[in-house]
């Protein structure tokens, strides 16, 4: 279905089972994607800050409660840099607390996904998220007001 180029997706999650489920769900969507996985926030930030890494992913999925030893909070650390201003960040979390949702949106997240228990629901949610994110990317829409909760 993608004819406007390959989609580059990054997931940072410290739970191995969740990473595998995510990979499987993405694979079953049959989209033209390249997926990169990280086990914690430190690995992710090292990758993003790597010198010469000009090409940012089209979307970054962040587990909200993931380990990150170098910084208090991955989201804040990423949004602190203007280079990542247009990077779409999707919070991928087991929490559906309104306080968490509101706080992460205010903190700079674009998307909030509550991790579903059902694999088919996960696939469907990811499909929705990737589709809408792709529109923002290919039509140059304002990422500053891009908010999506699912």
């Amino acid at each position, binding site marked *: *279905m*993608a*004819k*406007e180029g390959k989609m580059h997706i990054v997931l940072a999650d410290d739970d191995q089972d969740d990473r595998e489920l995510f990979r499987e769900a993405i694979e079953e969507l049959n989209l033209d994607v390249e997926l990169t996985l990280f086990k914690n926030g430190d690995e992710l930030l090292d990758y993003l800050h790597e010198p010469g890494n000009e090409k940012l992913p089209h979307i970054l999925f962040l587990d909200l409660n993931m380990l990150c030893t170098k910084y208090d909070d991955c989201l804040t650390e990423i949004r602190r840099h203007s280079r990542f201003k247009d990077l779409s960040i999707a919070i991928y979390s087991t929490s559906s607390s309104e306080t968490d949702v*509101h706080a992460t*949106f*205010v903190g*700079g997240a674009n998307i*909030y996904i509550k991790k579903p228990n059902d694999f088919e629901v996960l696939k469907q949610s990811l499909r929705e998220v*990737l*589709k*809408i994110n*792709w*529109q923002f990317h*290919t*039509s*140059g*829409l*304002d990422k500053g*007001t891009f*908010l*999506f*909760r*699912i």
Partner: protein
Amino acid sequence: MKKTYIKYDINAACRAIMQEQLAGLGIDYELEELGEIVIKKKVPPAIFMTLQANLKRYGIDILDDQKSQLIQRIKNTIIDMVGRDKLPSSKISHYLAERLQMNYNYISAVFSEHTHTSIENYIILQKIERAKKLLLHDLSLTEISHLLSYSSVAHLSGQFKKMTGLSPSAFKKIISERKKIAHTN
């Protein structure tokens, strides 16, 4: 530090950039509506590549395959339509077919095949993008629903919720809290 706001006309800005760049390279051209350019004489490949590189700095891409050109024309026409103060009163499929001088079924099929979305959804997306801007300019939902030709506030709120997962007021609250934080930092 003092923050000043600017207002810009993206269309005028793009035209000015195109005029500057094309004239600067000595290319004989004519600018038409909605991102179309007629290049009158053959341009040597080296100059064309320079033009491509120069425009890239401004986020402007030259589309050279037919299908991408058509998709961009469809998108530009939709953006233009949604940006007007009143949406067309005729059926949107008729409106697009007429503006693009092409059969709607064909336009719709090419669009769906290449964009991860459909024309109908793309129109909703663009309308909600405009609704967001108007909300942040403090227009009421009633005013916005008139401007964007929604039959009711409930219909507008429903589509807003579908496209963002948030109510218009929750959306507005998040953006204004973000701005407050940006001001205090």
